[in-house]
């Protein structure tokens, strides 16, 4: 009996050790950047993990420097993210409501088309979109980014959202219809309130997009005042002439914090969103 207990204790102990090691590995990069952002000087190299002297200079630099317009970029990103989120989520919900609730000719073809189109390497279409935006005189505007992000939203989200809407009992719609509700009323009064978890999931993924897109935004936004955070941050790393690691670290922290907090708070919803494809699949 005791032999078994020892064995179990050994097993648990080993598990704890592995978990602790993994946790350290998981947290370490975040910690390293956070501490790095308080470090004085400009270099990447540091003798110790915890810097000898802590300073907030780099955060101040982000907002006051002439070459890094962090505050401006923050507002740009926020504006683009919120607007494209609202439009994109609405478009996605409409699309998924239509394909989930109505049966019409060409429906399955439309669904397969959306699926296949979603698989094209995104920036293959960038040249064409670039030329299109040039044609419509939208280059270097935030409107262009909002339109493109929002128009792309149904491609990414429709399938997940449709899977969710499929689980809302159709008897609810039918009951409402008997009571004389129009399709639009059913959508706003029944479907929307019931799909709050799905809306949160879609909104979050759509919101995060502009914060991390550095490829397309870099192509469209030409003047520094119009940049988004991702473009600015990438520029801080990629342009080699003025490497300033602590400033980059401070910028990373400021971008990562809101998004990381959102993700951790909405963890459960994200899990539902992730698995809804799998379990019902």
């Amino acid at each position, binding site marked *: 009996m005791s032999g078994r207990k020892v064995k179990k204790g050994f097993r648990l102990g080993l598990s704890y050790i592995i978990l602790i090691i993994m946790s350290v590995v998981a947290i370490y990069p*975040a910690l390293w950047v956070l501490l790095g952002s308080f470090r004085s000087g400009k270099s990447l190299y540091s003798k110790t993990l915890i810097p000898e002297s802590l300073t907030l200079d780099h955060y101040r630099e982000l907002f006051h420097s002439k070459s890094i317009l962090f505050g401006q970029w923050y507002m740009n990103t926020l504006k683009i993210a919120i607007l494209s989120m609202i439009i994109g989520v609405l*478009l996605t919900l409409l*699309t998924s409501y239509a394909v989930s609730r109505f049966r019409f000719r060409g429906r399955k073809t439309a669904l397969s088309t959306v699926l296949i*189109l979603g698989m094209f390497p995104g920036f293959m279409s960038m040249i064409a979109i670039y030329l299109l935006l040039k044609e419509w005189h939208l280059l270097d505007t935030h409107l262009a980014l909002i339109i493109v992000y929002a128009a792309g939203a*149904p491609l990414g989200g429709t399938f997940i959202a449709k899977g969710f809407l499929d689980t809302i009992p159709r008897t609810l719609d039918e009951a409402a219809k008997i009571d004389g509700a129009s399709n639009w009323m059913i959508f706003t009064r029944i479907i929307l309130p019931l799909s709050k978890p799905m809306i949160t999931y879609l909104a979050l993924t759509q919101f995060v997009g502009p914060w*991390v897109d550095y490829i397309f935004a870099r192509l469209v936004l030409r003047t520094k005042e119009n940049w988004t955070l991702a473009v600015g941050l990438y520029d801080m790393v990629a342009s080699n002439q003025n490497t300033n690691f602590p400033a980059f670290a401070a910028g990373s922290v400021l971008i990562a914090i809101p998004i990381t907090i959102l993700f951790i708070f909405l963890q459960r919803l994200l899990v539902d969103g992730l698995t809804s494809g799998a379990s019902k699949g």
Partner: protein
Amino acid sequence: MQRHRSKATILSILSMGLGQIYNRQFIKGVIFLLVEAWGIFYFSGNLGRSLWGIVTLGDAPRRLVKGKWLDGDHSIFILVQSLITLLFFVLFIILYIMNVRDAYKTAQNREKGIKPNSFKQSVRYIMDYKFAQSFLSLPAIGILFFTIMPIIFMIMLAFTNYSAPNHIPPAKLVDWVGFQTFRDLLTLKTWSHTFFGVLSWTIIWAILSTFTTYLGGLLVALLINQQGIKFKGLWRTILVIPYAIPQLISLLVMRNMFNGQFGPINQYLGYLGLGGLPWLTDPFWAKVTVIVVNMWVGIPVSMILIMGVLTTIPKDMYEAADIDGASGYQKFRIVTLPMILFSTAPTLIMQFAGNINNFGAIYLLTNGNPVVGDYQYAGATDLLVTWLYKLTLDQNKYNMASAVGIIIFLIIATFSIYNYRRTKSFKEEDMIQ
């Protein structure tokens, strides 16, 4: 009583809206007439030129006129403009057909003695019975212009000679060349060597990265889910952090951490008395680095997924196994593992497909480097997608890039369609309720 039908049809063929006006649906008729007017105005100026443009891609090169360079046709602009016009034209034709059909049907009803709908009634009819189609038209237009048009454009580029240095507008014209680009890519020694080299690394990468993250996630999920482990929620939250940090940030940070000269990883190895490794600069070690970093990014996702599945496995299956005297390992092998594999298989396939296209992981971390000497503009860790990116934005070899893009698309589409076709949600979607 045939006359209503034929008259309305002929009138609506002559011009949009006339049939409707004949059917006494005045508002609808005027709306259609306005569309027609816009169409004539727009297409009379553009349609002919766009047809010419898409066939010839422009025929006037840049030339010297009285000692000054005069710009010729810009083939690529012409191609895009032609495509946009033709797309509008297709939309217009569809509308036209709808208009004729509508006039015909209304007239048919009139012959039967049914009064045509008033404008209010028409709107109501659309909201009640054509709801899905009218709702979908908005996203559909977005997809048409920002996804389908670019894809058609890209496919067309693969059949032109649009590439640096000899065929870049506005200095030079671009021409159709048929399958020449594909032939070059697959048979020309310099190109095919790069292509197959990059392709094989892409496949190795996709397999390794998918399996390492999956196995890692499985291991962590089982560890946390063990009986007797305390603070399950805490472990989970800690281990999910890499997933919550935006990849753009975490990968750029990793790039600094693995820096061979100043990065902390080599620094710590130095403390342990080991020499530093060329993490990002040696072809072999760079490959190891991207796989390891990808594990850091990807394990949390698999962990979440698998933990979700673990909660759905019915307890009585384990009880039954206990009664049969199964050991812990046997329970895992016979109950847990098959259940997990069964429910995560579709996600696994999608992850594999996603990894083939995992642009961020490579581009942000190594940029595809270190450079390989006998490759055409590609490095040791370049995937097909990142190579494509370099071909497009750095080297302006647009036609070659498009050909590679089409090949990537074919690979991914095969996986995804196979996967999608065998999922339940496609086969029996109406069975859910």
